[in-house]
């Protein structure tokens, strides 16, 4: 997306940017600063998301938080809900765990377990140790939702690192008997925000469009008729039916406990990837 913005000035009026990339885009002067006062629907936004530091550069806001989600745990119905990610290494789940084949997520889990900042763990060896301890439990590493659904319905594992949005879909579409669990360490969160490119020719219309996108009425229709990620607008979430799975999984309190993925410097990203690769090779050996 950033590449498109850089190479096509003036073409886009609204862009969707992951919160981890906002500061980079703003830093390159690709975005227009925003004033939430112009967005009538912004009043319902969860404060923790609305005012998130990653959306701000030099104290100015560059993105309106729009949708969010979490990576945490999924457990088969009927089993005790794990309180901590430590369950991934617990002996009772021997050969019964699926991990998400994603370096940032898994390093995050390892960082939680070793009591470190998920976005900047200083002691990668401790992270590696925590992750390697899961080896006897790890049955497979999943990389697509489809793969996850097939393996889960075949009963190949009971406990897994999973996406909140995917958990909704797995239950709704395939009636898979699972619970999405956010352990005490909190979830690994992501947030998508809407921004206006600095080069946009229709700033006003763009603002109107963004306001419409965070409108609870629009969201409820989108979420119930088509299916949508969790809205950053708390009012929108409250207007969903009480038994709505999406609402049930994306509880407002999780917003407080989750850690949002931060922009990663290149060398840290490389270090994460290499570490995860090493852990995977350890699992395979």
């Amino acid at each position, binding site marked *: 997306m950033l590449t498109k913005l850089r190479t096509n000035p003036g073409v886009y009026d609204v862009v969707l940017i992951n919160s981890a990339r906002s500061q980079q885009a703003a830093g390159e002067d690709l975005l227009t600063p925003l004033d939430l006062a112009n967005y009538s629907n912004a009043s319902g936004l969860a404060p923790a998301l609305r005012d998130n530091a990653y959306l701000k550069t030099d104290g100015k806001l560059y993105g309106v938080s729009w949708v969010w989600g979490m990576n945490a745990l999924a457990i088969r119905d009927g089993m005790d809900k794990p309180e901590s990610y430590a369950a991934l290494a617990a002996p009772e789940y021997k050969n019964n765990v699926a991990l998400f084949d994603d370096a940032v997520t898994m390093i995050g889990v390892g960082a939680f377990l070793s009591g470190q900042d998920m976005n900047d763990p200083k002691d990668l060896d401790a992270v590696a140790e925590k992750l390697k301890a899961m080896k006897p439990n*790890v049955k497979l590493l999943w990389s697509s939702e489809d793969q996850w659904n097939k393996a889960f319905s075949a009963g190949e594992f009971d406990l897994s690192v999973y996406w909140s949005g995917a958990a909704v879909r797995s239950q709704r579409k395939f009636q898979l008997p699972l619970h999405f669990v956010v352990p005490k360490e909190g979830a690994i969160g992501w947030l998508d925000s809407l921004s206006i490119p600095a080069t946009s020719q229709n700033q006003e219309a763009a603002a109107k469009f963004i306001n419409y996108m965070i409108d609870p009425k629009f969201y409820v229709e989108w979420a119930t008729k088509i299916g949508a990620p969790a809205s950053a607008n708390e009012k929108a979430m409250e207007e969903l039916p009480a038994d709505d799975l999406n609402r049930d999984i994306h509880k407002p309190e999780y917003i407080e406990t989750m850690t949002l993925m931060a922009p990663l410097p290149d060398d840290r990203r490389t270090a994460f990837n290499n570490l995860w690769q*090493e852990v995977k090779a350890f699992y*395979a050996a």
Partner: protein
Amino acid sequence: MPPEASAAGLPATRRRMPSWLATAALLLPSYAWLTLAVLLPLAAMFAFSFLHATPLGNKPVVWTLEQYRAFYDQPYLLGVAWASLSIGLWTTGICAVVGFAAALALVRATAGRARETLLILVLLPFWTNGLVRVFSWTMVIREGGFLDVFVRWFWPSAPSLGFLYTTPAIVLGLVHGYLPYMVLTCYIALLSVDEAVIEAAQSLGARWWTVLFKILVPLAAPGLVTGAILIFVPVIGAFMEPRILGGRVGVTMGTVIEDQFTQAFNWPLGSALAFTMLAVVLAVFATFSGVLRRSATT
């Protein structure tokens, strides 16, 4: 007839392109295509492998050899490489045995319509979506999968034979996917074996295994070697089968390299690993073909 001969035989009154020009004109499109489709991307990847980071955004381009130190900096990669090579050898070996047998059956035991139908059946894996093909195997070989159901039909108390998420499962998936190459190359090699040569061997007292190992296998050796190359190279770079069928053990050079391109966004490292593997494979083949040539001349 060599092209010069046909050109020389023409009456002098008719003007013709010089034969080298005609040859060049004929070959140009394919070479141009080869350059565009194969060599250019390869060259680009080769260039990437000397970069510090993926050249995107307005990061400065830094040239370095550090990517080629990967096996030194991350020694666990040696274990991964070894696992990939052994998967490659197993897959190629099984493909050679099964593919040769299938090709032989196609050439010798059937004729006409039956042969065509069988050939199409053999090629079926080519025409099925790879992902579908691999996922189907997960349903067969998982614990309580079709394989177990089938076995328990005859022996209800049979222990599970499911071997999903093991190295044999990866090899099985790869063999299924790449077997057609071996069948085809062996089939073509065996088609060109004169029936009379086999009969001559029999008339001289050769039993079937002598015919097989002294006549058919050596005569089809070019097909076996071509098939082996066609299979071994992509197999050690394969990532779908290890990921889906290998579970925890499915970490190969293929998955490591793919991770660099898709997840880690570290194209330089991915390229460097790929070219290192390529160099190893070429070295293996060079040694192998040297041995072959020497044994052929003695």
